[in-house]
């Protein structure tokens, strides 16, 4: 494990845990956000018969870097009427909340930033900070549009946490662990051991679990879409109504922080879905490293599979975003309270009964 390695290297456990928790931020998520922003623009452009960014670098590959450079140079505007303390803290909270989630996500079997037993709970809890940050941003901007956006966003995120948690509990009942690393290890072997196919449960229960696991996956995918405010649930930002929601008043680097946090969040929720239902970093067909005897190859393969699956879901989010219109705020709440929560609850009961068999 990476933590032990750093503990030996630095001789201090606190230092080791800080380093190992921070590493994914710099090695993986920041570069990912840069690529994802470009990817989104390219995907949307090609869906819309356009070319997208073409000028900066080959086919616009450096566009995001140019954007970030531009944002760094921009004036950091804080209006007189803003509540300055809250206004300045808000983007940090959103940024930190989004990125902290990655500390508990296992990228490979030998790399997990912080291997805590309640990993899944930690991620859901730390994501709660994002809600506060958004509300702060909306309130401190002292602007009616941002306030409306923030209110919508908070209502939406809190509502959709309920079906998410119910699905998490469903998984918890089957696997008996909230440690993301263990959760992934349970799903090792071939792809039929993934939770979406009933997990590595023996006997008839596995067959019975499959349809309910698919329903649970549907519920959590829809609610995570809503939690990261992507279309069709992007009403907090609804640019046609609220200009750009809670971050209307932000400029420069603070705006970039919201922006990067959004893309980090996209990957974070995809990663959670992948870990819960699609075997996390497990390969669907076994490892090349095992068959040719090069065991150091396995983590690299695992990282590849994890990124592959995660990016797959990110692409799905983008596809949805550029295809679907946006729901209205009351319809969104109806989706959550009238459909997702009852479905998730009944699903939870049935899965509970099946695990008793």
């Amino acid at each position, binding site marked *: 494990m990476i933590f032990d390695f750093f503990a030996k290297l630095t001789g201090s456990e606190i230092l080791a845990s800080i380093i190992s928790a921070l590493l994914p931020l710099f090695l993986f998520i920041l570069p990912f956000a840069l690529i994802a922003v470009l990817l989104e623009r390219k995907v949307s452009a090609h869906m819309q018969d356009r070319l997208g960014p073409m000028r900066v670098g080959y086919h616009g590959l450096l566009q995001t870097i140019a954007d970030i450079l531009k944002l760094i140079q921009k004036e950091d505007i804080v209006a007189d009427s803003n509540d300055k303390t809250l206004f300045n803290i808000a983007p940090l909270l959103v940024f930190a909340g989004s990125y902290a989630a990655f500390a508990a996500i296992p990228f490979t079997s030998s790399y997990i930033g912080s291997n805590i037993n309640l990993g899944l709970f930690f991620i859901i809890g730390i994501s709660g900070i994002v809600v506060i940050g958004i509300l702060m941003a909306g309130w401190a901007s002292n602007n*009616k549009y941002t306030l409306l956006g923030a209110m919508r966003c908070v209502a939406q995120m809190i509502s959709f946490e309920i079906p998410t948690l119910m699905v998490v509990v469903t998984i918890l009942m089957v696997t008996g662990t909230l440690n993301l690393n263990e959760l992934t290890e349970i799903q090792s072997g071939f792809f039929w051991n993934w939770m979406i196919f009933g997990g590595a449960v023996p006997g008839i229960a596995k067959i019975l679990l499959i349809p309910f696991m698919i329903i649970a996956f549907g519920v959590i995918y829809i609610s995570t879409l809503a939690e990261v405010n992507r279309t069709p649930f992007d009403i907090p930002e609804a*640019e046609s109504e609220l200009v750009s929601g809670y971050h209307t008043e932000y400029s420069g680097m603070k705006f970039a922080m919201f922006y990067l946090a959004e893309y980090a969040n996209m990957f974070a929720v995809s990663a959670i879905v992948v870990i819960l239902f699609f075997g996390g970093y497990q390969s669907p067909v076994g490892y090349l490293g095992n068959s040719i005897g090069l065991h150091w190859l396995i983590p690299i393969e695992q990282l590849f599979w994890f990124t592959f699956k995660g990016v797959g879901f990110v692409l799905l989010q983008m596809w949805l975003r550029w295809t679907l219109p946006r729901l209205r705020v009351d319809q969104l709440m109806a989706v959550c309270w009238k459909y997702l929560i009852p479905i998730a609850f009944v699903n939870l009961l049935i899965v509970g009964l099946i695990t008793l068999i």
Partner: protein
Amino acid sequence: MALNTEEMTLNMGPQHPSTHGVLRLELRLDGEFIVDVKSHIGYLHRCFEKHAEAMTYPQVVPYTDRMDYLASMYNEFGYALTVEKLLGLEIPERVEFIRVIMGELQRIASHLVALGTYGADIGAVTPFLFCFRDREKILSLFEMTSGARLLYNYIWVGGVARDLPPDFLRLTKEFVEYFKPKIKELNDLLSFNKIFIDRTANIGILPKDVAVNYGITGPMLRASGMKWDLRKDDTYSVYNKFDFDIPVGDGRMGTVGDSWDRYYVRILEMEQSLRIIEQAVEQIPDGDVSSAIPRRIKPPVGQVYGRVENPRGELGYFIVSDGSVNPKRIKVRGPSFVNLAIFGELCKGHMIADVIAILGSIDIVLGEVDR
């Protein structure tokens, strides 16, 4: 415990992505619900009517372009028809056919903007770009004819500025063939999308009698179930030579006269426009297009009201002539301006997101509201 609540006043526009220009809306909100909407107009006022008094009759044509800048051809069309009515001019048939082809292409182009931006208002950005891609093709046709892509100055009093370029009819036919399947694509992508229907059906219902009382015209009136189209009911130019239907709203997804009907009537109208263009391209006679253009327009003393079915409704010109080369007075009855009047009425009781949906379905062009 009774909570102390208060209404919030929200200013939307003139700089706002969905007010379709520089409309300013003053919303009084109870939470997310609309208590009252006041629209403030005039940010794009350019004194068209006063300007026109200082111009000679032909000089007014480019100014009419700048009213409804998404349907410039039709503005010129209406103006030319009205002045010709005042003069009692005979127009060569080829000119009339050219005007009808241009007018119907313009109607499709204008509806494409309306439908595309409506999709974008609801949150679907992709149909918007698809619509603009197809509109580009029409603009290219206009460009090869008139040299301009937005403000054409093509239809003149007594004729058109120049004859059609040699390839025009072939390219127009090609466009019609190209565009027919694209309507289906738009329907699949947007019109019958469940979310889109949820957002627009039963929103901003405009009953027929209210629509008539407010003087609503165009697709908005027809969506309320009233079969009223000046091309058929007060026919002008050569529209009586073509076979086409007038689509009306039937409340398929909700109630007659809701936003979805207003949206869908425009799609059906594009299909009818394609039919007219097809027939016109087949039947267009040869001839000279500039023979009837008068060298000096000096109408007799009198007044005239001419009206045409603009993509947005009844576009009327009321011209008073004092016998000089300048019009004494030109009054324009703009369809967007009249249609906008009912906006506040439609919004009451709906939510903020619906305001955008309703405004988009009215399809205003601020250039013409303010003139």
